[in-house]
Structure formats: C-alpha cells, structure tokens
C-alpha cells in the first residue's frame, strides 16, 4: 500500500481521537478512497491492520455504504438525485440528458474514461431541485432545459491531465 505522506499523517492523527480505533473506520476509508479513487483489496487489508480488526470487518463496511467502491470510476463523478422532490422537477430527464451529452449509460463510465453518471438518493437540497453533485460539489436547479449547457461546462473543465475522481 502506497499512501502519500499527507494521507498517512492525516490517518495517524485521526485514529487516536476516537475512544476506540474501529470508530475511525469510515473516515479512514474516505481518506484512502479520496487518494486512490477506490478501495482495493490491499486497502481493505491495510485498514484492518491499522484498526486492529479482521479484514472481513472492513469488507462488510465497504460493501454496505453506497459511497464506497471497489473499482475505479471516471475522472468526473456525476451524481443525479432521483428522489421525489427532484423527480417532480425533472431529474429523470436531466439524467437522460447528461448521459447523452457525456456519452455513458447509467452507472457506467464513458469510453474515454472521463465521466461516470449515477443516480443517488435525496441529498438534502430538495428546495433547489433538481440537483446534481459533481465530484464533491453540489449544483442546484439543474433543470432539463439547463442540462445540456451544464454537461458542456463539465466537459470544458475536464482535461486528461485531471486525476481520476477522488470522491
């Protein structure tokens, strides 16, 4: 496991703050995923050692929480909220449009490795529906009419030099 000095330092600072090491689980996994893009088998074993639990205890957490993934995704992670308040204002059309513009199916990554489009459940921004999260940033009022321009904006920001999505 090759973690950067910065991430290692962050993780080592984090664990002793909790009354029990295992409590740092989600935070450690977030930190690793942010650096490496996903959680590999190595990462799971490393975390298990670090938190003094069996690897299975880490694995069952990784497979339970939707934000954790075990395979890489595109450079930009596009998450469209599909729950009621967003759906009532056109979220499904927005998602269709983003898939079309960015060239990928739902839950898939575009052939150039740039974009992954997914549905997510309510992200607590229902008053400015429909909403889309790109990487770690919330974008509000992305109506079906605005979706093509929004996709164009994402495309303009995305260059191959960008590392794979970290969030």
């Amino acid at each position, binding site marked *: 496991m090759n973690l950067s000095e910065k991430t290692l330092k962050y993780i080592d600072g984090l664990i002793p703050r909790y009354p029990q090491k295992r409590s740092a689980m*989600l935070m450690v996994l*977030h930190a690793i995923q942010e650096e490496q893009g996903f959680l590999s088998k190595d990462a799971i074993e490393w975390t298990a050692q670090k938190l003094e*639990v069996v690897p299975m205890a880490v694995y069952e*957490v990784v497979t339970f929480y939707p934000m954790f993934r075990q395979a890489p995704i595109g450079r930009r992670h596009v998450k469209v909220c599909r*729950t*009621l308040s967003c*759906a009532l204002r056109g979220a499904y059309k927005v998602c269709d449009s983003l898939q079309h513009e960015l060239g990928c199916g739902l839950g898939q990554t575009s052939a150039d490795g740039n974009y992954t489009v997914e549905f997510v*459940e309510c992200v*607590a921004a*229902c008053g400015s529906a429909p909403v889309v999260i790109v990487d770690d940033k919330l974008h509000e009022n992305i109506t079906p009419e605005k979706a093509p321009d929004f996709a164009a904006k994402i495309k303009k920001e995305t260059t191959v030099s960008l590392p794979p999505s970290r969030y």
Partner: protein
Amino acid sequence: MPATERRIIYRHIDEPGYTTDLVCYQRHGGYEILRKAIQRQPEELVQEVKDSGLKGRGGAGFPTGVKWGFLDRKSGKPVYLICNADESEPGTYKDRQIIYKDPHQLIEGTVLSAFAIQARLAFIYIRGEMFGGFTILERAIEEARAANFVGNNILGSGYSVDIIVHRGAGCYICGEETGLIESLEGKRAYPRIKPPYFPAVLGLYNCPTIVNNVETLCQVKHVLDMGGKEFAKIGVPGDSGTHIWGLSGHVAKPGYYEIESGKATVRDLLYDFGGGPPAGRTIKAIIPGGVSMKILRMGEKFKVKLPDGSPGEWGVLDIPLDSGSFAQCGTSLGTSGMIFMDDTTDMVEALANLNAFYAHESCGQCTPCREGSLWLKKITTRVCDGGGRMEDIDLVKTIADQVAGRTICAHGEAVAWPCQSNVPKFRDEWEAKIRAQIHAREHPEGAATTARTGLRLV
C-alpha cells in the same frame, strides 16, 4: 393579513454579509449564551430544557428534556452526545442551511447541550455527501477551540469537551439513531433492538448516549437564552418554538421559512410563502414532513377538536402548522419538509419513486422490511410499466400492513406509511390506471398506450 416568519434559528441565515467565521458570529452575540450558561449547574440547564417543552426536530418529535432525563447516571460510564447531522429524510434540507451558513450556532448548541448532560466527548455525524459542510464544521471547531469555547477547561469553568466531526457514507439508515451509533462504532449501520438498546442507557460503546438533531441542538441554545418558561410561550401549547418549513416539489417558490408553531396554516405556507402552485396548475396532494409521513389529498376533510375544545372540521389547507394539528389529521409534521404535488402528478409513479428509495435504503437486517420494501418496489414499478393487475392495489396495502410494527427500527413504518396512505386515498387513480393497462393488453392493436407521464418517477 399574510402570515409572517419568525426567525430564531435562521435569524442570520442568508443575511447579507453574514459569514461562517467566528468573528462574524461573535459580532452577532455568538457564544455569549455559553459564557453565561457554563457558570450554572448542569441540572438547572436540563430543567430549563424540560420547562421549555422543546420537542426533537429529527422527525419523531420526542421531548428533548425528557430524553435527557433518561440518561443512566448510575452506571458511572462516560456520557456521549451525538449530533445527528445525517439529514437524509427526503424532502428535508433545513439542517444543511445551519451547517453551511451558521456552523458556530450548531457548535454553541452542541457545547451547551454537552455541558448540560455532562458529556466529555461529542460527535457531529454528518452525511458523507456534505463534504463542504464537513470542512466548514472542522474549520469552525478549530476556531472555537482556539478561542476556548471547545476543548479543555472551557472559559475557565473546569468543564472540557471535544467535538469530533464524523462523515457518513451515503446511507439513509445512518439517520436512525441506533444505526448511527453502530456506524460510529465502525460497523454496518444495523439499527439495534429497543429494549434494551435505548441510547440513553446503552448507546455508543454501550455507554449512555444522547442523540439529537442539528436543529434541536440549536433550539436548545435559544431555550437557554430565553429561559425554558419564556421559550414555552412561543408557539402553541404542546409544541413550543418555531418550525423550519422546507417547501419542495410543485410550488412556485420552493424554499425555507421559519414560522412560529401553530401560527400559520398549510394555506399560508403554500400561498403566502410558496407563491402557490406553478402557473395554471392546482395542488393535488401534500406530504407534510419528509416522505415517510402519510400523504394528504386535497379535498379531504378532518373532524378535529379546535384549540378551544369545540368540535370542528378542517380541509388540508386549514391545518395549522404544529405537531398536534397534523396528528389530528392522521399524519405528522415529521421533519417539516413539505412536498407539493400538482394535478399533473401520477400518484402511482410518485409512490413507485418512494418505494425504490426504501428498497435501496433498507439495511437488510429484518425480513419484513428487507423483503417487503423490495416487493413493494417491484409491484409498483410493474404497475408503472404497464403490467398492473387489479389485485395489485390490495396487495400493496397488505404488504405494507405487514411491515409496519414488525421491524427492529422505524424504517419499517417509513416503508409502510406512504403505501398505507397513498393506496386508499388515491384508489380511483390506481384503478383507472390499471383498467387502462388491462384494456391495452387485451387490445394490443388499439392506439391507447400506457405511456408513462414523462415524470418517470421510477
């Protein structure tokens, strides 16, 4: 006279020039309440909260002071405070505003509450998607620590508390307090069975623990500012303080409005604040407080007891905005996130959307919830896709009836209530939709298709 807001919690939110840093917060009187309260006896503060009648704002509306009173003091184990910042009930976005725009208010409320219950460690469990909110809170806590409002020997009082901000990772069930506790212990968020695992007795690490919602902790700050008895005068008896109403769905002006409890009606909320339905449309249904609460159909009438004790009748728009009034109408104000649906909404599709949510979010521990939510999703989706059968209507209701009350946590009720209310109230729509589908299947040559509404809620 149009209804007006009374901003207590949201007093500075969206105020021009108001920022998230400590200097700004202190310029507006920040941490003055802590400065005074920390000189008092913790028991007095608990009593103030009891006197205030404050009810939790996380959805269940449990009286906060009573909950604090359940803390097991005899065990001698450390006490923990957890702020529930998971905000995951669909339709709810009130805590987000506090976290992102007034983080120090939450921190002051947290320190005050921790002091009152004598916790030495507090956690803010924030949903994973709110990455920005996480960094804002971390920064604010650093500032507060540097100014000695958090940390060791706060303001020379001898009392110390640290706050850890902890990120979730995308699960609705982490909002359920015992699921949250499991998650904070580094495990899957499987809710615990009660009894014996009442958090106030056997919570985090099996120690006495209080879990409160973000807004509740902020309300506590104002309770301690005004005094419990004064606070109890705001709103109506049985539901003191303000509620932050978050409007979403088919309404001209979605947004949040803080209103004194019981001092306005659903009509005021829709027209005076929300600007009415979108142009040219009429409202058909309302979900009062987060999607898990029972739906109301426009035109319904409720036999109620008016505040003066006399019998009366309310339509949906007449319902006053307080917990007792919604309870009289067979539903609940929940998290006070109100969703409006206009006449273009296909109610079967709306339910299918929610059933997909619950099936995705069931933690899978108990069979009625895991299987029930999945079957409900499959059946409602099939009805939306043109394969409806008349018997599906009763089937949906029957399955929901067998989930509610038979699960480890209240996710079971959350699964059941939307079905149990939508199906009987909109039975005519279900029948018409399915009748058309049966006709289309029997006459495939006919032009009548069962095209989905384009809302495509599933």
